[in-house]
C-alpha cells in the first residue's frame, strides 16, 4: 500500500518482517493503534453479537462520519467529533430501548432514520467544506498513515477505560443481554445496564473508527465475536477467543496492507470474514464427523 516507500520485501520470516516494518516510525504507531482498536472492538463486539443488535452496532459505527467531518468543518479536533457524535448516538438510540417484538419493529424505523440522517449530515459537512474530498476516503475507510503518538495515547486511555468497565460490569451486562426479563426480576437495573452497554459500544466504535474509518468499524466489532461464538456458547470464553482473534486479525491485516497494494480496511474485513467462514465450516464438518 505504500508503493515506493516500502522498506523491504516480504520474507517468510515474519519476525524479521516485523522488525523491518518497525524501522518506519509510522508503522510502529500503526501497530500500536491497531492492537488497541482490534482488542477493544472484539471485546465490545461480544455483547453486540450476544444481543443480536448488529443494526444498532452498525449505526453507532457510522455516526463517526458526521462527527469527524463536522469537527473538521468547524475547525475542531476530529477525535472530539467522533466522541461527540457517539454521545449523540447514545442519547438518540438509548431513549427507547429494551423489550422485543413490537418495540423492535418501531426501533427498526427509528434506527434506520437516525443512521440515514447522520450520514446525510456527514455529506453536508463534506460538501460544505471545500477541499475535503481527499480526506473523505480516509474518513470512511481509514488510514494507517500518520497516526500520531498522541492519538495512540488517546486510544490507549479509551481502551483501558472501556475494558475496565467491561470487567466490572461483565456478569450483569451479559445477564441483561441474554435474558432481560429474568435479569429484571432478579433486581438488576436492566434499563441502566442497556444504557451502559450502548455507551461502551458507542465510545469503542468512535475509537475504532479513527483507525479503520467509519464504514469499516463494523467488521471489527461483529466478525471476531461472531467467529468466537461458533466455537463456544459461554460468554466469557467467547470474549477471550474474540479478543485473541481480533488481535491476530489486526496484525495480519497490517502485514498484508504493508506488503501489498491494497488498503488495510480491505484486509481487515477479508481476513476476519475468512476466519469466520473457515471456523463455521470446520465446526459443521466436525459436528457431522462426531455425530
Amino acid at each position, binding site marked *: 500500500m505504500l508503493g515506493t516507500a516500502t522498506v523491504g520485501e516480504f520474507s517468510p520470516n515474519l519476525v524479521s518482517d516485523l522488525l523491518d516494518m518497525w524501522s518506519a516510525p509510522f508503522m510502529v504507531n500503526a501497530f500500536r493503534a491497531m492492537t488497541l482498536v482490534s482488542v477493544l472492538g472484539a471485546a465490545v463486539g461480544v455483547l453486540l*453479537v450476544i444481543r443480536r443488535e448488529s443494526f444498532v452496532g452498525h449505526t453507532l459505527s457510522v455516526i463517526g462520519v458526521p462527527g469527524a467531518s463536522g469537527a473538521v468543518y468547524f475547525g475542531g479536533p476530529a477525535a472530539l467529533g467522533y466522541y461527540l457524535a457517539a454521545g449523540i448516538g447514545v442519547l438518540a438510540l438509548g431513549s427507547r430501548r429494551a423489550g422485543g417484538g413490537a418495540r423492535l419493529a418501531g426501533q427498526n424505523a427509528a434506527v434506520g432514520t437516525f443512521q440515514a440522517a447522520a450520514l446525510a449530515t456527514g455529506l453536508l459537512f463534506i460538501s460544505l467544506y471545500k477541499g475535503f474530498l481527499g480526506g473523505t476516503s480516509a474518513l470512511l475507510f481509514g488510514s494507517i498513515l500518520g497516526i500520531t503518538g498522541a492519538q495512540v495515547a488517546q486510544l490507549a486511555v479509551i481502551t483501558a477505560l472501556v475494558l475496565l468497565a467491561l470487567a466490572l460490569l461483565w456478569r450483569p451486562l451479559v445477564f441483561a443481554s441474554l435474558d432481560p426479563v429474568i435479569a429484571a426480576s432478579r433486581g438488576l437495573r436492566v434499563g441502566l445496564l442497556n444504557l451502559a452497554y450502548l455507551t461502551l459500544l458507542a465510545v469503542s466504535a468512535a475509537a475504532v473508527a479513527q483507525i479503520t474509518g467509519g464504514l469499516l468499524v463494523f467488521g471489527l466489532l461483529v466478525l471476531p465475536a461472531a467467529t468466537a461464538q461458533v466455537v463456544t456458547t459461554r460468554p466469557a470464553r467467547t470474549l477471550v477467543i474474540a479478543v485473541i482473534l481480533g488481535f491476530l486479525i489486526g496484525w495480519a491485516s497490517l502485514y498484508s496492507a504493508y506488503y501489498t497494494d491494497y488498503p488495510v480496511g480491505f484486509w481487515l474485513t477479508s481476513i476476519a470474514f475468512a476466519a469466520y467462514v473457515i471456523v463455521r465450516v470446520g465446526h459443521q464438518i466436525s459436528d457431522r464427523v462426531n455425530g
Partner: protein
Amino acid sequence: MSASLWHALITGTAVALAAGPIGYLLVLRAQMFTADALSHVAFAGALAALALGWDLRVGLFAVTIAVAVGLGLLGPRGRPDDVVIGGVFAWVLGLGVFFLSYYTRGGHGSDGTAGVRVLFGSILGLSRAQTVAAVVLELICVAAIATLARPLVFASLDPLVAVARGVPVALLGWSFLVLLGITAAEASQVVGSLLILGLLSAPAGAAIRLTSRPFVGMLAAAAIAVGSVWAGLAAAQLWPRIPPSFAIVAFATACYLIAGLIEDPFVVERRLSSLTE
C-alpha cells in the same frame, strides 16, 4: 427546467414510489438491517463494475440482487440471522474498499471522486437512458409489491399461521429481498448507497406513526417518500451549496419527526404490538 433536473425528478419519483411501500414492509418485518446491508452491497457492486470497466449498473444490479438472493438462502424462511447478515455485509464493504482503491489507482479515467459519488449519489447527473431504466424497473417493483402486498403483510405479521394456511412464506420472503435489492440498487443512484435508508425507513416510520392500516400505510409511505424527493430537489435548486441527497433525507427525517409529534408514542407501541402479536 433543465433536462438533468427532469431526469432527477422522474427517477427520484419512481424510486420513491417503490421505496415507500418496501420500507413499510421492512419495518413490519423488522428487516431494516437487511436493507442497510444491501445498500452497502450496492456500493461495492457499483465500484466493482467501475474497477473492472463494466457498465456501472450491471455491477450494481448483478451484485445487489445476487447478495439479496444469497442472504435469503442463508436463513430459515428467507430470513437470515442478524449476525450472518452483519458478517457478510462487513466483508462486502471491505471488497468495496478494495475496488475503490483499485479503481482510483487504475487507468479507467478515474478522478478519485467516484467513491464519493457512489456513496452519496449523483441524482443531477442521470442520463436519459438511466432515467428510462429506473422508471421501468421501479414500475415493475411497484406492480410486484401491489400484487404481493396482501400475502406479504400476512406472512410478515404472522409467519407461523401463514405457513399453516399454505402461504409460501419462504418464497415471499425471498421475492421481497429481490425487490429490495432492485430498489436499493436504483436508490443508490438517487441518494447514494449510504443514504438509501433515508428513503426506506423515514417515510415508512412516519407512515406507521400515522395509520394502523397496512395498505393505507404503504400508500402514505410512498407519498411521503415522493414528497421528500420533490422537496429535496427544490431545496437543492434554491440553495446550490446543499447536496440534493442531504436535502431529500433531511425532508424525510423531518416527516418522521413531525409524525412523532402528531402521534402519541404509546398508541404507536400498542398499534405495533397488535400488529406483530
